[in-house]
């Protein structure tokens, strides 16, 4: 098997995740889809690392994880406070900027 297949898988997962972000309204699920996209990227980075034979790709993936963790913490906090004030976790309900 050619390790390029990992990249195909990563592309597929990324696309599914992106579509999920666009389709779902529940903010938590949207977040999960974003996590899915990040993980797809990580997979491709690790596959690249293997192809190139150095560990830099893994380091980048590691940083991605850290950033993702930070993002999840803040994002979920936002969702919680949003739910607290609006009793809804739907991203469509948060459209106060619209005239």
């Amino acid at each position, binding site marked *: 098997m050619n390790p390029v297949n990992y990249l195909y898988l990563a592309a597929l997962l990324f696309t599914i995740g*992106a579509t999920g*972000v*666009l*389709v779902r309204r529940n903010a938590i699920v949207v977040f999960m889809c974003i996590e899915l996209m990040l993980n797809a990227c990580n997979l491709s980075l690790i596959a690249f690392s293997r192809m190139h034979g150095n560990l830099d790709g893994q380091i980048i993936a590691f940083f991605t994880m850290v950033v993702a963790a930070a993002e999840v913490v803040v994002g979920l906090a936002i969702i919680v406070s949003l739910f607290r004030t609006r009793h809804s976790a739907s*991203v*469509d309900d948060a*459209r*106060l900027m*619209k005239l």
Partner: protein
Amino acid sequence: MIALLIAAPLLGAAVLLCGGRRLDRAGHWIGTALAALSFVLGAVLFAGLLGRGAEDRTLVQHLYSWIPVEGFQADVAFRLDQLSITFVLLITGVGSLIHVYSIGYMEHDERRRRFFGYLNLFLAAMLILVLADNYLLLYLGWEGVGLASYLLIGFWQHKPSAATAAKKAFLVNRVGDMGLSIAIMLMFTTFGTFAFTPVLDGVGKTGEGTLTAIALMLLLAACGKSAQVPLQSWLGDAMEGPTPVSALIHAATMVTAGVYLIVRSGAIFNAAPDAQLVVTIVGAVTLLFGAIVGCAKDDIKKALAGSTMSQIGYMVLAAGLGPIGYAFAIMHLVTHGFFKAGLFLGAGSVMHGMNDEVDMRKYGGLRTYMPVTFVTFGLGYLAIIGFPGLSGFFSKDLIIEAAFAKGGTQGWILGGVALLGAGITAFYMTRVMLMTFFGEERWRNLPAASPDQPDVEPAADHGGGVPHPHESPKVMTVPMIVLAFGSVFAGAFFGIGERFVHWLEPVTSFAHGHPPVAAWVVTVATVTVMVLGVGLAWAQYGRRPVPAVAPRGSLLTRAARRDLYQDDFNHVVLVRGGEHLTRSLVYVDHTLVDGVVNGTAAGVGGLSARMRRLQNGFARSYAVSMFGGTALLVAATLLMRAV
């Protein structure tokens, strides 16, 4: 001393215009006294000049620095030399006489004080004009006389025609003023100064093109002020002003400012032969134009106005001839000042006795009723047609000779035109004379009240209905008599022995012209043509009775009655053209400029209204756009890699 000369009438204007009603009773005496004082001062200065040597007669009085800016030095400085003292004497002399005359003429006018204030203002401005030592100060006087002229033409401002005429005079004059200001700017850029001496001395070092431009701009200015073609249209209408104004400003003095300007700037014109040619052409055209118009007018003042135009045409023609003509132009200017002022005052006297009637067809046979007016007017008449021995004979004959002396075909054409003009002058002046003072008394058959004058004052000597022609009071006739003396003797005094020419020679330079035929031939021809014109007029207006209502007349007559369609021309070409231009500009502004602006705004607005739908507030919608954009970017990247 020179400043005092100007200060006197200026003071008069200030006192009379600011003094208020308490000066109403004495105002005219103050104005007249100050004008006379000015004349006396002028005479003293003249005597002073006579006491000096011929080359030592230029006095410059530097009063103060007017606009002292780095490189732009304008001083209030006056220059007294033979040329300006001539003008000073003419202006103050004729001006004083007309002040005296106005005392009688304006006796029943409520605003007489104001009138005298304006007259004094005019005198002051005119004196500044002729005494200025630089072009900028000259421009001040130039504008000042324009203002005074405007105020005096529109003096009877309750008459719409007077107000319109004043406005017209002002506007047409503005065109000329534009020329003068451009000329001054050109001078400043070329010579770096406006003072007469450096400018006129610097001519030799300057290219002919620049000089021609300056000269043409000066000519434009002269055309505006002196009512020369093509800026002549205002003079006829300016007769709406009181008759003394017509006599002083629009016959004797202000309209000659253009001639003064050309003669004063003679060095520039000498160095620009093309411009000189244009000057002579303008003069010749105006000469005929004014004469033809003068033949057709039934309004006595307008006929005289046409005559003025024509006579100034002579002067401009002479001034365009260069050194052989400058002195003659000024000489004719002075003699014309005498006899034309006299004629206007005579016309005013006639009107005064005829209930302010101006239509000559309603005059006739007045010689027995107003003998003094008849005699003085007659002497002015003889002078203007160039009756041998009187002043017009000397000055005009010299100009005609000089025109022939121009040489070549140009000389023959110009001389011929001048000669023809002399014939026409004789014709129309005889016509005026015959219609006014001879023939049957047509005014007896007039309807009770003249419809033109519905509000004639019911004064004792101004009875309504049939006019009772009477001689004017002494205060009016005396100036006329004095002017008549001038008309008779001035020419001989100046002309015999070329006294005037030698007097002016240091300033204007002089060269003897050499006409292709002997001088006496020209003189004989002039007299012959004059006699022909008189005879023709007598045949038409003396032998046959003059109809009280103007006949339809030939095509030329009708055209001349309408001032040879000058106003129609102006209306069609300038007014309509301007209207069309502005209208199309407005149209372009509305459709194109505003269209682009409004269209852009509407387009942006409409686009935004549609784009606004995209901004629906749903984060997911925005995410779709982002995602789509990313997809497009990936596609573009791949495409670029593939290519």
